[in-house]
């Protein structure tokens, strides 16, 4: 499913809109960076509460389709700027991580 469609279905606010047509294949929910590095697959949507600079690097290195900050948590402008430079799609959701994951699962496995 395409990133733009997922964002619309889940009510995500897009902070760094880069690749609306990027294919989303799954999701991963974690705040531990090593865990994310070990277990996300390329094309996953990564749902997290972490919102510092290193998150952008982790997302880039694992080639996630995008990063969703749950519970309305907003990254600082330098994080958004780094994501623009590194070309990583960033989103904010007002929902808690559990609900973001639930909605994503439903969208991907109707």
């Amino acid at each position, binding site marked *: 499913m395409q990133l733009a469609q997922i964002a619309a279905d889940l009510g995500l606010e897009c902070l760094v809109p880069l690749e609306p047509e990027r294919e989303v294949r799954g999701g991963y929910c974690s*705040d*531990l960076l*090593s865990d994310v*590095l070990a277990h996300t697959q*390329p094309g996953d949507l990564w749902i997290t509460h*972490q919102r*510092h*600079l290193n998150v952008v690097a982790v997302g880039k290195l*694992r080639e996630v389709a995008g990063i969703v900050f749950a519970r309305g948590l907003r990254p600082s402008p330098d994080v958004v700027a780094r994501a623009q430079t*590194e070309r990583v799609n960033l989103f904010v959701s007002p929902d808690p991580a559990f609900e973001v994951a639930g909605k994503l699962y439903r969208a991907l496995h109707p």
Partner: protein
Amino acid sequence: MVRRTNVVLRRIYPIAPRDLEQAGTVSTHVRRELLALGMNPDVVRRASVVCFEGEMNMVLYSQGGRIILLVKEDRVEILFSDHGPGIADIDLASQPGYSTAPDWARELGFGAGLGINNMEKNSDLFKIRSRVGEGTVVRATILVGVPFF
């Protein structure tokens, strides 16, 4: 006899201790270099994870050092060497779940105790040498689709 393979690319990156602002930039640079060489995406991902974990360990725990990227015809080698403090018990430090990360680092999502484990899992050859009071050298090698013999 050890066959010497040609070095295709060599990069040396200095690492400053506790510089979290810059942490991760070496790994993203290494990733770009490997992609530019047209390497297999799986090799690039594995090398990127190895590099990031090593870089973060150096930033969080060492007194600084450097990362050397060596791309040879049949392998990617990443060398991490720091100026200390050294690891007293490498087996213990390598145990999944073991971490000496301070609370502030854990709150940022570091210190899961999976770093060395991740490096090892994504490498084909992996070696840590360390002496307390002197420093640590880690050599991680990722083979690039070599034939078996």
